[in-house]
């Protein structure tokens, strides 16, 4: 390519707010990722490129409180951190004494466009450190956006667990109107520490959510994540997880429930960089109307990572003629003594199963609901925390009711 590439309105608007540095120049040079990039072939950002995004307006504590009640009722009590329009709402934030708030310092991953965008326009987010041996219980991380003009938030969060520390992070993202949320979360799990990361993305249907998670897991550490994607017109949840010590474990499970013209992409790269680690991935898509689901999951097994146990399952249920799924489960393996497998299935509801239920007097709509819920259960059941499971289940139920109505 020769000559300067014309900057898109979106990139111009980001650059006008960007911090000086490498991320800014990368963004200026590369723009937003295009289809030609293998990792972005199924999720084009053409439409996003056309919109300029302003810095979001700040809101009053009262407005913020009302917003939390409306969009994240699950986080009205208990320990929580609340961000509205990219700003911390101190009045609504309540952290346990066992965690230490630290400044966020996240590395730039130059080959990951979402890390570049987040770094370039970065807003300081939630930085905590849980000391060795401490069980910090459950913390809700609530990120909401509201406003009349298209605005974008680029919060960078960082969670560090020291040896044998434990934490459950309930990560709720939602909002109203047209906006872009581009959060990043950098996770570090030390030896024998255990982080449960439950993410609910229920952004407004005009919004775009481009989230980036990078996690490092030490010996006997566990990063157990589940993402429920219900919202946003266009979303991508990109996870890079690296197992650095023996006997570590990573779970990247997800359910994407989409309708209308929604497009949601779950992309993950799980790197086994140490022997004897386990990775598990169960991803379910339920697609209605003209929805488009994307799954790209890669398990990378380094030479040193003998005795790796990797499993990946991706399934999609297409409930409409116009729904579509693109799935790319990928294994890249350089060690010989490993057990890695993946599976993928795509199809409609099974007519025989429907018939079975109908024959027992269950109405069509209910029979469908039963089968869809059963389909999702494989993934949802992987959430072991009862309260969290109930929360996810409730959101799924509400979504389904609204669709079927």
């Amino acid at each position, binding site marked *: 390519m020769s000559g300067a590439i014309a900057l898109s309105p979106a990139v111009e608007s980001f650059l006008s707010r960007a911090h000086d540095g490498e991320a800014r120049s990368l963004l200026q040079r590369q723009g937003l990722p295009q289809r030609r990039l*293998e990792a972005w072939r199924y999720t084009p950002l053409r439409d996003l490129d056309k919109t300029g995004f302003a810095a979001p307006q700040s809101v009053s504590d009262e407005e913020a409180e009302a917003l939390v009640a409306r969009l994240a009722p699950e986080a009205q009590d208990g320990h929580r951190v609340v961000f509205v329009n990219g700003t911390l709402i101190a009045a609504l934030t309540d952290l346990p004494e066992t965690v230490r708030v630290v400044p966020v310092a996240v590395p730039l991953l130059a080959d990951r466009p979402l890390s570049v965008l987040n770094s370039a326009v970065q807003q300081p987010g939630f930085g905590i450190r849980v000391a060795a041996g401490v069980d910090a219980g459950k913390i809700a991380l609530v990120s909401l956006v509201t406003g009349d003009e298209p605005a974008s938030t680029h919060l960078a969060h960082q969670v560090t667990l020291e040896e044998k520390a434990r934490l459950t992070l309930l990560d709720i993202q939602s909002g109203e109107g047209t906006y872009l949320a581009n959060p990043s979360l950098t996770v570090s799990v030390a030896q024998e520490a255990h982080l449960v990361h439950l993410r609910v993305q229920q952004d407004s249907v005009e919004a775009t959510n481009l989230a980036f998670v990078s996690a490092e897991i030490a010996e006997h550490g566990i990063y157990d994540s589940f993402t429920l994607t219900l919202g946003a017109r266009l979303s991508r949840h990109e996870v890079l997880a690296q197992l650095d010590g023996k006997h570590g474990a990573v779970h990247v499970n997800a359910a994407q429930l989409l309708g209308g013209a929604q497009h949601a992409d779950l992309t993950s790269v799980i790197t086994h960089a140490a022997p004897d680690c386990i990775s598990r991935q169960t991803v379910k898509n339920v697609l209605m109307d003209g929805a488009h689901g994307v799954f790209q999951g890669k398990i990378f097994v380094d*030479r040193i990572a*003998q005795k790796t146990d990797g499993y990946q399952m991706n399934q*999609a249920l*297409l*409930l*409409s*003629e116009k*729904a*579509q*799924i*693109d*799935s*790319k*489960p*990928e*294994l*890249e*393996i*350089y*060690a*010989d*003594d*490993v*057990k*890695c*497998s*993946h*599976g*993928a*299935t*795509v*199809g*409609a509801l099974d007519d025989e199963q429907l018939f079975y239920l109908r024959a027992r007097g269950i109405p069509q709509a209910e029979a469908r609901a039963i089968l869809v819920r059963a389909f999702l259960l494989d993934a949802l059941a992987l959430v072991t925390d009862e309260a969290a499971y109930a929360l996810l289940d409730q959101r799924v139920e509400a979504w389904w009711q609204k669709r079927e109505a």
Partner: protein
Amino acid sequence: MPAVTETREAVETLGQSTYKWGFETDIEMDFAPKGLSEDTIRFISARKQEPEWMLDWRLQAFRAWQAMEEPSWQKPEYPAIDYQDAFYFAEPKNKPGPKSLDEVDPELLRTYEKLGIPLHEQAILAGVEGAGDVEARLPVAVDAVFDSVSVVTTFRKTLEEAGVIFCPISDAIREHPELVKRYLGSVVPVSDNFFAALNSAVFTDGSFVYVPEGVRCPMELSTYFRINARNTGQFERTLIICEDRATVSYLEGCTAPMRDENQLHAAVVELVAMNDAKIKYSTVQNWYPGDENGKGGIYNFVTKRGACRGRNAKISWTQVETGSAITWKYPSCILAGEGSVGEFYSVAVTNNRQQADTGTKMIHLAPNTRSTIIAKTISAGRSDSTYRGLVRMMPKARGARNFTQCDSLLIGDQCGAHTVPYIENRNMTARVEHEATTSKISEDQLFYCRSRGLSEEDAVGLIVNGFCKDVLKELPMEFAVEAQKLLQLSLEGSVG
């Protein structure tokens, strides 16, 4: 190449751990001037006495190629190819008369003998009639491509009686221009991809098969490719057309002598199957893979694609890939006819420094189309092997089905095995299933074989053959025997 007894003997008697087909035949060659330009293409076209339309077609492809960028998304890595530093046309000087074997350069015939190609019709017939020690087998018609030129086609007469046209594509261009014009480039357009465009511009020979309506081809057809001369690329072009209710089984075998420089092989194969037609295309590829350090060896960059144009048409690709420094190909099926069927059975073995990136594409356009993909990948030494496959269900593919199974076996801890399936579904009633596993040869299996007195290499051979059974059973019988042998040879030195 068909796995005839001679071949197996040749394999057994020749030396052990080096490339068995690494001999170079000393025949005088005629070369086109080195490099690639419109003049080269005019030279090729003129030498082959092609009509004007063919030259125009080639030039169109060449212009498309010039505007294209060499792809770089793939996994295999290789040093940049200098397209101007190769010969695009090499022809044995004593051009044999296509009708009589007596006119063929005896050196050349000896080459084939060494390879065990059943060129002599009599030898083949003897094989059929011979009882006792010699395995009974069906006659096989062979079109042998030596560097760039098809030197001899056997059994043309018998085939003509059945109405089957089987000849070098250069003959077809002159003798059956209407068929060639209609189908050439209709499955793989000239500007389809970088290497297909290059092939379209400079292809020098290949095979042409036309099976008319209702005809079941009376014998298996076979092409045999051999790259012989230094610095020549081999660009052959195969076109197979099966009219309504016609059936053909086609075998392709490839070898090349040992060389220091890498040799480019960029073939294009196009298959067209009409209503209820069946095409079975089997390949055993053992081009020279390079030495232990990856020096030399063939770059096998091939575009193979079949179109099921009619109802209930069926195209089946079976391949055993053991050779080449780099194999990069995706035999594909475009399922455009209602109820048509695509199949892909593949074994890819890499050893030493070999790299393979191979798989298939199944494009389901019509209702009730079905496809099956079984891919077995074996990596040993310091090699890398990738399965890359696309299954795409288009909006009209109601009730379509796909089943894919990819299994990888790693032998040693310096190799890599990768699986990259792409699944794209645009129809809710279409069903896609994909399974993949990666593992190594289990200690239990090895121990079992070893405790029964098998050497470690034999044990590995046995296990590998078992691993590949699902694919090998799809090969024509004679090919299957050869393929098993090749698997063992390719993995030599990878254990113990």
